[in-house]
């Protein structure tokens, strides 16, 4: 067993021990990541976003969607920042900061769950296609091509029409668009490894295909998958907002969503432009964080991909 493991190069593109003595590729990737300022900025943003989302009840000054101060909102004005409300109120008379903080929550939950589902289904299809090959490969990849050729919005609309408007259908809609990306990624990664010496060696040792794929080839695909998942989270955050912007979001108005905050802000754009500004910036910064982190991960795991 240990002899077999020794044959398998550990994770991302094998044999690139550039300096750093006996450190494994993961460790040298970590070192490269730490030296990349853009990556650090991304990581900090992502970390903050996750903390805000998880600790929302502790961080938010009030409870969300209370409309407690509805009386202070008039048809022609929305109260701006005050001592009690650092960012002012939203147009329903709830504390704007609280709404923003809770908005991070729905973005994180929907983004992470949908990416996880997209990753799991896509990876399974990709592994089946690349691992078994033959007609299984052909059938799966044609299916993936079809899925890829449907515009994501159309996919989302179809899912919403089929399942009704609910958080689950938003998640499914977003993950459906991600399945082909992960399926192609894993299949390509497996195919690229198929002819490599270590795989040939394992096969000549009499290991079964399934064991080679699951135990040895799959771990080597972890790097690219991690990169793609991070980048996909950026799109997922934007997609969640886009869907609720279009009115396909969570039907429960008590759930704070950045996309919906942007929609409602539009009616008062001339009186209170900040109502649109804050959620918009929140979406963009979160997406920026995941993108920077993803790009930095890509460069750290595969130094040759650097610009």
């Amino acid at each position, binding site marked *: 067993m240990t002899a077999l493991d020794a044959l398998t190069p550990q994770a991302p593109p094998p044999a690139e021990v550039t300096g750093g003595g006996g450190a494994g590729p993961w460790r040298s990737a970590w070192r490269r990541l730490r030296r990349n300022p853009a990556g650090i900025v991304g990581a900090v943003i992502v970390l903050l976003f996750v903390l805000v989302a998880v600790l929302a009840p502790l961080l938010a000054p009030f409870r969300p969607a209370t409309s407690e101060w509805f009386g202070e909102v008039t048809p022609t004005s929305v109260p701006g920042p005050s001592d009690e409300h650092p960012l002012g109120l939203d147009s329903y008379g709830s504390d704007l900061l609280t709404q923003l903080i809770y908005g991070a929550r729905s973005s994180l939950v929907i983004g992470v769950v949908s990416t996880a589902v997209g990753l799991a289904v896509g990876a399974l299809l990709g592994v089946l296609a690349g691992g078994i090959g033959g007609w299984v490969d052909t059938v799966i990849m044609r299916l993936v091509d079809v899925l890829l*050729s*449907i*515009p994501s919005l159309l996919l989302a609309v179809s899912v919403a029409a089929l399942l009704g408007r609910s958080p689950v259908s938003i998640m499914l809609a977003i993950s459906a668009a991600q399945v082909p990306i992960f399926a192609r990624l894993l299949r390509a990664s497996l195919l690229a490894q198929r002819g490599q010496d270590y795989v040939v060696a394992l096969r000549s040792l009499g290991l079964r295909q399934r064991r080679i794929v699951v135990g040895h080839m799959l771990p080597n695909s972890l790097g690219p998958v991690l990169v793609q998942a991070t980048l996909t989270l950026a799109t997922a955050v934007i997609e969640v907002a886009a869907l609720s912007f279009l009115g396909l979001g969570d039907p429960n108005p008590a759930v704070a969503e950045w996309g919906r905050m942007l929609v409602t802000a539009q009616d008062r754009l001339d009186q209170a432009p900040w109502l649109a500004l804050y959620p918009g910036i929140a979406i963009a910064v979160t997406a920026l964080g995941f993108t920077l982190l993803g790009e930095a991960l890509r460069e750290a795991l595969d130094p040759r991909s650097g610009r």
Partner: protein
Amino acid sequence: MLTLVVRRLALLVLVLFGLSLLLFAWVRALPGDPARALLGEKATPAGIAAVNERYGFDQPVWQQYLTYLGQIVRGDFGASINTGEPVVTTFFERFPATIELSLAALVLAIVLGIPLGYLAARRRGGWLDNAVVGGSLLGVVVPVFFLAVLLKYLLAIQLGLFPTSGRQDARIDATHVTNFYVLDGLLTREWDASWDALVHLVLPAIALGSIPLAIIVRITRASVLDVLSDDHVRTAEAKGLSRAVISRRHVLRNALLPVSTTLGLQAGALLSGAVLTETVFSINGIGSYLFDAVTQLDYPVLQGFILFIAVVYALVNLVVDISYGVIDPRVRVS
């Protein structure tokens, strides 16, 4: 080349066939009987009987499918449950707005993106390069609907430079021939109508154009950098060709190939973005029609829309594939 087109069109027919089967199954898979699903909440026994008669729901399933297929082939996508208007008619009224917007955005992105990407690559590491790389990152992470809202607030509401919404000033008495408003004005020689439609198009086009612009700039830059280090460029330089000739004939021509590939793949993103942009600027395109259909479960509209988009999408990608042949003769040979 011709075989490519024929093969792709045959594939398209196959895909549409499969899609029609799926859509057919979709409406039948809905809970309750299809007539009730089609009529929605307005279903009365008489209405259900009429729909059963019209769509032949009382016949065997395979016969129903053939009937449905026959209607599609004849261009009959049924009528909207909400408005009673034939789906096809509404498409021809609404789609031009969406296409006009997408084309304007695409033209803007190409006209700005290719030179910017080229110049950035030529002066790699310079201020323009840094600005372009940073800007394209922003273009990816700033959602198109947020950019649209920002532009609307700053340039339309605050500065009053552009109209805030719509496609044309209601006071202009314009004749509409094709429903492409800019084109209509040119066709009927109503220059003011055309100009007004164009002015209405500026902000939405900038907002929507940010998506393809960011991508075009990135790909152009990367691919120009690639080509610049190729041997043939060095040879051309050694031959003493002028810089303009080198960039036009030897660099850009090769570098644009990956750009056109990505453009085809972006058609879907452009459509989604167009729908979002339409919402912000209250443009009566396909967006609002589609979302009314989703919220009210207007199945004939949804079925027709999905088929229609699939055709448009496949045709766009076919055009892109053909354009390879024009840009790169090597594709024609193989």
